[in-house]
């Protein structure tokens, strides 16, 4: 077991995601930069595939990911590499088509050797504003539950009175 993903807030505008892998940095880096390998794992939630993965791995080069769900839904993300230092560091600006991060983000990934052929991958997501970051952090149980109640209210509002099971 290599441990779980940790996601924490840092400063006013950052989100930091870390995870340990039982493989050396050059392999983890390769798995993040070769489209055929990305398509094997970067597939997202259940039912989705990474249908398109195009990577022009050079400073200023762009990448494009498109996910497709078996029910026909699609989502996409585009990015531009700012820094490439294999197998240590990748910096890119990135934006989802749906823009659920409140504007583009600057993503910095570091691939740090931690002994025994393992790698600690740290992804820092820098948001455009403190508000954008904090809206991503609307994760605490209270907020999640309030949002669920709001959704439930919306669902119940659509049900004719007397038909609520």
């Amino acid at each position, binding site marked *: 077991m*290599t441990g*779980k*993903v940790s*996601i924490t807030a840092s400063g006013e505008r950052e989100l930091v*995601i870390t*995870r340990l*892998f*039982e*493989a050396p940095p050059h*392999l*983890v880096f*390769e*798995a993040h930069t070769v489209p055929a*390998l990305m398509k*094997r*794992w*970067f*597939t*997202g*939630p*259940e039912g989705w595939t990474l249908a398109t993965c195009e990577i022009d791995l050079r400073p200023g080069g762009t990448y494009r990911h498109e996910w497709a769900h078996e029910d026909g839904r699609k989502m996409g993300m585009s990015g531009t590499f700012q820094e490439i230092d294999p197998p240590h560091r990748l910096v890119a600006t990135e934006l989802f088509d749906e823009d*659920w991060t409140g504007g583009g983000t600057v993503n910095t990934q570091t691939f740090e050797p931690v002994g025994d052929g393992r790698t600690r991958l740290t992804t820092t997501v820098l948001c455009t504003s403190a508000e954008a970051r904090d809206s*991503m*952090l*609307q*994760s*605490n*149980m*209270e*907020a*999640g*539950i309030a*949002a*669920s*109640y709001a*959704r*439930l209210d919306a669902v119940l509002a659509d049900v004719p009175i007397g038909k609520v*099971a």
Partner: protein
Amino acid sequence: MESDQLDAVFTALADPTRRAILARLAEGEASVAELAMPFKMSQPAISKHLKMLERAGLVSTAVDAQRRPRRIEGAPLAGAVGWLEQYREVWERNYERLDALLDEMKAVEAKARKGSRQ
């Protein structure tokens, strides 16, 4: 989700102690004694809350005869948690697939190294 189960989920989530228990279990499984500690509540009182969470399918008991640790169950919560929890879940799944891929890549590399020595 069945309406009955949805009711059970929201009833279970309506109480701050039960939400705190879920937040604690989101960090990893814990025994009843471990869960009772920060709440200054008796173990039977905690057990009562756990029973409601279990009825809602939000918590299950791991097979470990001695500690009987409780763990959080993701499925009923999927529609009931915030964006970051879903985000974390997506990353976790992605990285589990990456673990498997890296195992394959290591094996291929080891084989190539062995081949080049011969």
